């Protein structure tokens, strides 16, 4: 079970009063992390247009992520990838009832502020866009809007949580249609969690201090994570997920849900594939149900995919060392 606040630094939130003078607090850790809890066992789909957002909602997505270009097109286009047009984000917010997320560049405080003011439900500080600050991520405790961040390792995940991320997605390699990196990273995070849990269980406080120094995060955060043996926030898988079977496999590795980027709207059977991915994510424990979901897609219409070994641009490395 994921604690909603624990001993971590907390957002105290912004206080005001209701019409009948009852205290109201917004932007607390419970509200930001709790929002991510409501997405669990769901699929968040990347979209670039109102039409795609409607298809995603119809297919059973728990949320949509608005981008200017899908990750595979970002890859092809080159140049600088920035946050999506506010006009498109607004149109999508006016058209679907599910939560709407949008990406900002790593470290770009003002793209994030603009998205928060535009009232998106969650901001993704994302390596899919070109980083604006190579050395710093956004200090997310300053925001009322919750953030999700990517991570390839436990150290990266905990650094982002310490900066105020309310949700983590273990990174894959976006826009490749290749799930290998997503699998690599969730397994790595799981291994590292097992290691620190065993250190905690053996009562070795100095061992935890060493980990905290190595990870460049506080002792308290390492200790709390080690104690519960999982990330202290909701964790989704992301990057390169292309088929229902990909989604189900990642769920079986302990992910709380799935982000699908180019995998759906770069496939030629987007509508069926969106629905099939949702079904496989919900019923991942039932291999027969996953088979039925997999039947709904046509492999000839999948995103072609890229070999992750020979990529010129490795998005996952962006912001990783900070």
């Amino acid at each position, binding site marked *: 079970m*994921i604690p909603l606040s624990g001993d971590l630094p907390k957002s105290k*939130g912004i206080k005001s009063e209701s019409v*009948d003078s009852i205290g*109201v607090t917004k932007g607390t850790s419970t*509200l930001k992390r709790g929002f991510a809890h*409501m997405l669990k066992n769901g699929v968040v789909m990347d979209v670039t247009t109102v039409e795609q957002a409607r298809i995603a*909602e119809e297919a*059973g*997505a728990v949320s949509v992520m608005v981008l200017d270009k899908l990750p595979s097109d970002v890859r092809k286009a080159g140049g600088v990838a920035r946050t999506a047009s506010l006009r498109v984000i607004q149109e999508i917010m006016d058209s679907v009832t599910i939560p709407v997320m949008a990406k900002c560049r790593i470290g770009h405080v003002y793209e994030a502020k603009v998205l928060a003011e535009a009232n998106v439900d969650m901001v993704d500080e994302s390596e899919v866009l070109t980083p604006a600050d190579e050395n710093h991520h956004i200090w997310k405790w300053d925001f009322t809007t919750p953030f999700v961040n990517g991570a390839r390792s436990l150290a990266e995940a905990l650094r982002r949580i310490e900066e105020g991320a309310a949700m983590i997605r273990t990174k894959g390699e976006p826009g490749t249609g290749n799930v290998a990196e997503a699998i690599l990273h969730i397994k790595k995070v799981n291994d590292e969690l097992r290691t620190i849990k065993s250190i905690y269980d053996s009562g070795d406080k100095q061992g935890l201090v060493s980990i905290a120094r190595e990870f460049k995060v506080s002792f308290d955060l390492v200790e709390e994570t080690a104690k519960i043996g999982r990330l202290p926030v909701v964790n989704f898988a992301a990057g390169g997920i292309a088929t229902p079977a990909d989604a189900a496999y990642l769920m079986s590795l302990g992910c709380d849900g799935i982000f699908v980027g180019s995998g759906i709207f770069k496939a030629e059977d987007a509508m069926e594939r969106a629905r099939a991915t*949702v079904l496989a994510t919900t019923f991942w424990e039932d291999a027969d149900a996953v088979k039925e979901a997999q039947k709904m897609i046509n492999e000839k219409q999948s995103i072609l995919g890229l070999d992750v070994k020979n990529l010129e641009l490795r998005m996952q490395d962006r912001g990783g060392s900070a």
Partner: protein
Amino acid sequence: MSELDIGILALQGDVAENFMSTMMAMNELGIDGSVSQVKTPDQISAVDGLIVPGGESTMMGQLSMVNGAMNALKEKIESGMPVLGICAGMILLAKNSKDRVVGSTKQPLLDVLDVEIERNSFGRQKDSFEAEVSLDAMEIPSFQGVFIRAPAVVKTGSGVETLGKFNEKIIAVKQGNILATSFHPELTRDVSLHKQFVKMVADSKN
């Protein structure tokens, strides 16, 4: 008396949190029983009471259409099984729902609770809030209400009792065996509302 079995509808959303709160509520009441996660019509038909958790109502509605859970749920609730709907769960139980911005949607609903819901009634995530609410009719004078993109009840039918209001909006209702809240009791450590629900289930079984 056989053991109480309370199910949590486990298609999507904060299932684990409701599982924990229900276990704690049973412990505090000293009631023997189990809590199970249910997805299929067979699993649904086996439980004595059910919680429809927080999450995305559109998604849960569509998924429960796919595997026949929708019909099984409706049948069980109409035949008197106690049910607690939280946030998305409240929407799913309702007769009608409209979104504050988008308006009418085609989302599938169970149509067992005679109310009309306004979805995202308090605004988007940035306007999600925590505030103390009172549910005097449930003998809960004070409860920390966690409202996340919360819905509110805008119209109630004749058999529906209003349990609580916030900012002049109805945020908790009861209609016979159906209990529903806009806020998330499972995100707090206070299990008094889950205790009331466990009692409802225990009473209905006796």
